[in-house]
């Protein structure tokens, strides 16, 4: 890896050959064309994987990506369906873990494989006991070796303590010790740290480094990506059973890993519709849940509301407490504190059965273990939860049962040859539909689903979620748990991030905007905050209230999304803009929000930033080229100007002489507005334009130019200005000349002073540019882009303007209707309902 010229060039988003392997280093173990098929699921699809001695190869991938399957094959636990292993260049086949172990491959399992009733030392030597000369077990020596191993792992565990008395982390250490003691040449660690404390992880890493020095090849799997990257020499990413990419760890970062892991997702277009939700159906009020098995507090102080028609995603890693929470809501598990309300009624003290009857159903995580009765048919599984209700007196009415079953099979689209075949003959996706259909047959108000898409293929996943969206449209409240970000982003109305039993934050999946909380805990923030960093905001004129609003909005929204900001203004001077852009690139901004200085002049700077890997989002104005900036969000200047011109002409009685104040000529908006004015006004022969001056958007210049125009054309009765500032300058000039009464002024932008002037009758009308809304959109699209690689919107976006006249001027404040900087700031800290409601208002605007 240190040899020159071998570095694989990797940049986030860069497309690289999926099978590319960084050259260099000897290969000790190679999996070739590894394919594993379980029933109808292809868990591995022809993966080529290489392991190098003295290096840590980290396997990244989401649940079901095939990591564990690959490891199981390499450790001899399962045979591949196709493909083979090459150990030291020789094709090998392992019939058992024992055979793999004999060839020097050991595995630390994700699930602890220890006998809880035996002591630490017994477990360490299980199956390879040390013997004395008399052939009985040499307990003394076993204990001594165990003690040495524990010392090496810096863990204070007495060798004769039964495993059951050790805490989970210590058990994991014993598992590690067991693998270490095998003195393997290749050591596979599948989630070795899931229960370890930070100190224990450090020790483990130190041990791994020792192993590397001894030329041991380590394969490491972890959901804690940052941690895994820290120890990695090679990063290998699996997705949907395929090897997506291999890279030297030093060349990649978290963003790369997450991007490769999640990949470009199929867009099911399911979250697009803005919905109005009904009343809260499920309310959790400061709920604490204790895990019955070990007495641990699994969920603490959890408050949440799910409303009719709403799909809320509970996102979190393994051990975050998702399952415990859902089971507690469903009626299994112990709620030690707080209240769970179903449609307003506290369900405390009621059984699972009662809650199902009241309309609360759970589709459990492990459908084999908890969801289905394998010995029963598809039909009987479907009707299981509602069979009591289907019975009249004592007997089940077969007719109505079959009818209900058939209806459900077609409703949830279960692909089966009939209701009377064994449930095990269905594919995973269809089995899951049975598990869901079973609960839907009870006619629930609230449906809880734990990992509804685990272990099913992509197509079935889409079907299952579209089913949930259908049901939600009919008023079902849905709360589901997942550990896959793509699922969370695509299939929910709201994402609740759960970490260590608490809510770490809430997000709107459409925009990525954080609704509440600070998702600040280890495992979580890299997914939601990996985009975080500094956003460079480059605006035009900071002293102008219009751009002030733009800057304020950008800064506030970015802060609410968790970014740092820098703000600057180019004063419409392209050279200044170029310098500011270079500074932003040099400072390593994660994105640039730019109000471009000139449609042509700004192309180069945008191109340069994009080439440097920094996405640029344009607000307020556009550039004359597409495909470079990620978004170009402008107000619909033509539409706004036409609105203003029409209102002004009406006030003029469609007759009279007027002059025009023109904006900055390099600004495309100036021409756009002027053209739109002309288009409306040229239709009216009674109106005559007698003069036009350029005032560069500026109030002082507007006043000066107006004074000149007034002396040149004393008979004018109207002024149209390209923006409010120039209009306000004109008004000042007219006031000074005592001519304000006889001259009608039109502005554009809707800044606060202009709105006040309209309110006072000094200005006929102005046009509100949705600068606040547009800037918010830009920031939200930026955030979504940084999270998912997509903005979720077309590049060119034009937002309609609103006419402000004396009739509605009182409703406007600071460039917007109601939604203000304070509103945005408040949304990030307040109750979710308010934030969502605020969003809806914003849309109504």
């Amino acid at each position, binding site marked *: 890896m240190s040899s020159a010229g071998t570095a694989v060039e990797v940049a986030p988003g860069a497309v690289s050959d999926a099978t590319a392997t960084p050259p260099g280093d000897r290969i000790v173990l190679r999996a070739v064309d590894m394919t594993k098929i379980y029933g109808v699921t292809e868990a591995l699809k022809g993966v080529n994987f290489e392991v190098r001695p003295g290096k840590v190869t980290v396997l990244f991938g989401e649940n079901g990506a095939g990591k564990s399957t690959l490891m199981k094959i390499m450790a001899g636990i399962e045979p591949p369906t196709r493909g083979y292993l090459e150990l030291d260049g020789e094709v090998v086949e392992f019939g058992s873990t024992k055979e793999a172990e004999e060839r020097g491959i050991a595995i630390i399992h994700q699930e602890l494989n220890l006998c809880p009733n035996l002591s630490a030392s017994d477990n360490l030597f299980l199956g390879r006991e040390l013997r004395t000369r008399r052939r009985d077990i040499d307990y003394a020596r076993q204990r001594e070796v165990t003690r040495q191993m524990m010392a090496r792992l810096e863990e204070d565990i007495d060798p004769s303590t039964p495993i059951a008395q050790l805490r989970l982390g210590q058990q994991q250490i014993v598992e590690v010790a067991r693998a270490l003691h095998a003195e393997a040449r290749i050591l596979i660690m599948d989630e070795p740290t899931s229960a370890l404390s930070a100190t224990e992880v450090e020790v483990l890493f130190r041990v791994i480094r020792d192993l590397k020095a001894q030329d041991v090849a380590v394969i490491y799997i972890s959901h804690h990506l940052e941690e895994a990257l820290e120890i990695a020499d090679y990063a290998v990413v699996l997705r949907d059973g395929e090897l997506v990419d291999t890279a030297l760890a030093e060349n990649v970062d978290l963003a790369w890993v997450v991007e490769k892991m999640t990949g470009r997702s199929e867009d099911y277009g399911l979250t697009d519709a803005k919905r109005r939700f009904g009343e809260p159906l499920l309310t959790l009020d400061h709920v604490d849940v204790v895990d019955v098995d070990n007495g641990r507090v699994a969920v603490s102080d959890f408050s949440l509301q799910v409303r009719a028609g709403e799909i809320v995603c509970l996102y979190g890693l393994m051990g975050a407490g998702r399952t415990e929470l859902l089971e507690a809501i469903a009626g299994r598990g112990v709620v030690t504190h707080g209240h769970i309300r179903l449609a307003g009624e506290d369900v405390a003290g009621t059984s699972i059965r009662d809650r199902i009857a009241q309309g609360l159903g*759970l589709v*459990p995580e492990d459908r084999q273990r908890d969801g289905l009765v394998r*010995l029963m048919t598809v039909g009987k599984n479907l009707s299981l939860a509602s069979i009591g209700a289907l019975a009249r007196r004592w007997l089940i009415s077969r007719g109505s049962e079959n009818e209900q079953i058939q209806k459900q099979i077609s409703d949830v689209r279960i692909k089966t040859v009939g209701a009377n075949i064994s449930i095990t003959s269905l594919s995973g996706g269809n089995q899951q539909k049975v598990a869901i259909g079973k609960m839907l047959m009870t006619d629930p108000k609230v449906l809880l689903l734990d990992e509804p898409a685990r272990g099913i293929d992509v197509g079935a996943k889409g079907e299952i979620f579209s089913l949930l969206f259908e049901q939600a449209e009919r008023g079902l409240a849905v709360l589901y748990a997942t550990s896959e970000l793509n699922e969370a982003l695509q299939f929910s109305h709201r994402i609740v991030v759960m970490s260590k039993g608490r809510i770490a934050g809430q997000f709107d999946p459409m925009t990525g905007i954080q609704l509440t909380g600070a998702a600040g805990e280890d495992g979580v923030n890299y997914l939601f905050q990996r985009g975080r960093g500094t956003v460079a905001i480059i605006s035009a004129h900071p002293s102008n209230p219009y751009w002030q609003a733009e800057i304020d909005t950008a800064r506030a929204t970015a802060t609410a999304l968790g970014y740092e900001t820098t703000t600057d203004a180019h004063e419409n001077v392209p050279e200044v803009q170029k310098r500011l852009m270079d500074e932003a690139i040099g400072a390593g901004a994660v994105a640039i929000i730019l109000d471009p200085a000139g449609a042509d002049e700004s192309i180069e700077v945008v191109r340069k930033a994009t080439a440097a890997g920094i996405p640029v989002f344009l607000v307020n104005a556009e550039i004359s080229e597409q495909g470079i900036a990620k978004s170009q969000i402008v107000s619909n200047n033509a539409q706004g100007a036409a609105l203003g011109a029409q209102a002004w002409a009406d006030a003029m009685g469609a007759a009279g002489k007027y002059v025009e104040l023109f904006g900055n000529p390099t600004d495309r908006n100036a021409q756009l507005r002027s053209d739109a004015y002309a288009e409306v006004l040229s239709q009216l022969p009674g109106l005559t334009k007698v003069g036009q001056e350029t005032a560069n958007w500026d109030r002082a210049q507007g006043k000066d130019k107006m004074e000149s125009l007034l002396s040149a054309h004393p008979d004018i009765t109207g002024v149209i200005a390209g923006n409010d500032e120039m209009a306000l300058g004109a008004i000042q000039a007219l006031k000074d000349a005592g001519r304000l009464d006889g001259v009608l002024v039109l502005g554009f932008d809707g800044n606060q002073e202009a709105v006040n002037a309209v309110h006072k009758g000094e200005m006929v009308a102005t046009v509100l540019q949705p600068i606040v809304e547009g800037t918010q959109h830009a920031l939200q699209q930026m955030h979504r882009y940084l999270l998912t690689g997509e903005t979720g919107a077309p590049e060119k976006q034009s937002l309609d303007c609103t006419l402000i006249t004396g009739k509605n001027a009182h409703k406007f404040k600071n460039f917007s209707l109601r939604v203000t900087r304070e509103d945005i700031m408040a949304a990030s800290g307040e109750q979710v309902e308010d934030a969502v409601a605020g969003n809806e208002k914003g849309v109504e605007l």
Partner: protein
Amino acid sequence: MSSAADTESGGRLGNINWNALLVEGRALVALALIIIVFSVLSDKFLEPDNFIIMSRHVAVNAIVSIGMLMTILHGGIDLSVGSIVGLTGIVAGYLLNGFDLPLSEMVAYPAVWVVVLSALAVGSFVGLLNGLLVSRLHIAPFIATLGMLYAARGFALLISNGLTFTSLNGSAALGNSGFLTVFRARALGIPAPVWVMIVFAIIFSVLLNRTPFGRWLYAVGGNERAAELSGVPVARVKTWVYVLSGFCAATVGLLLAADLTAATPRSGELYELNAIGAVVIGGAALSGGRGTIRGTLIGAFVIGFLVDGLVLVGVSVFWQQVIKGVVIILAVALDQVQQMIARKRAADRAARPPSGPAAPTPVKEVVGT
């Protein structure tokens, strides 16, 4: 049967799949084999009188087995049935012989129907205790009912003082006659136990197949966690199966006492083992969730005919035991083979690319709607 199952086996109707038939109808095949072998070996085997005697023997085991099936379906077992048989017989005998009313000089002779109901109630109550131990205290069924096996037998011995009640006739004068008349009655030449077996078989078949309780029972046995999360009242179901088992055993206790015209505290010993044998030969899984009344009946017939046939042919008692054991093991071994074949078939089906009506429609169509 279902249309799906019909289509599935439809292809094979023309040329009979002997392998499948042998495996799937193995209990029936075994029964047929036993009948053929013994009718060849002994010309008395198929005589109506012998047949009726054998059927009566079978019936007693079959009724206990039906109760046993209930407990095995939920994944448990009831080892106490033999003791309940003994206890209820003793309760009936004790009551029919009159008992001293406390605080008075009088001896009470309850009417026969009171005796019968009391005995059934005692059997059911013992079952209820079993059920509560299993469902509420979460004691393993094997342990709970093993304890009850001793305790109930002990009570039977205590009540009777270890003696046998030989007079179950009652007398018209005391208004308690008729016990033997009823329980030894023959309708259409068929003895009462066989009728009871038939009635129980029908009632329990309906219970298992047509009521929510039956469905819940299969679900609890198949996957208790899934059943619980589906709102099945698991504890209630578990409690009730032991009550039913106790009730069945109590019925047998009465029939047996009438048959012997005596109630002995030792009656019913080892009945639990015959019952388990019948249930298992009948295709039930000891892990629960699988088993039928029909299979259990066939299992009871296999064991009953086998034992009686061996006696008839004159095989030594010692060999009888060996042969009985071998048959039970063979039956279960065949069951395992059948399941392995079924699993393999399912795996083959799954590995084959889906076709015909099972073929998934293209995903896009579904997502779009």
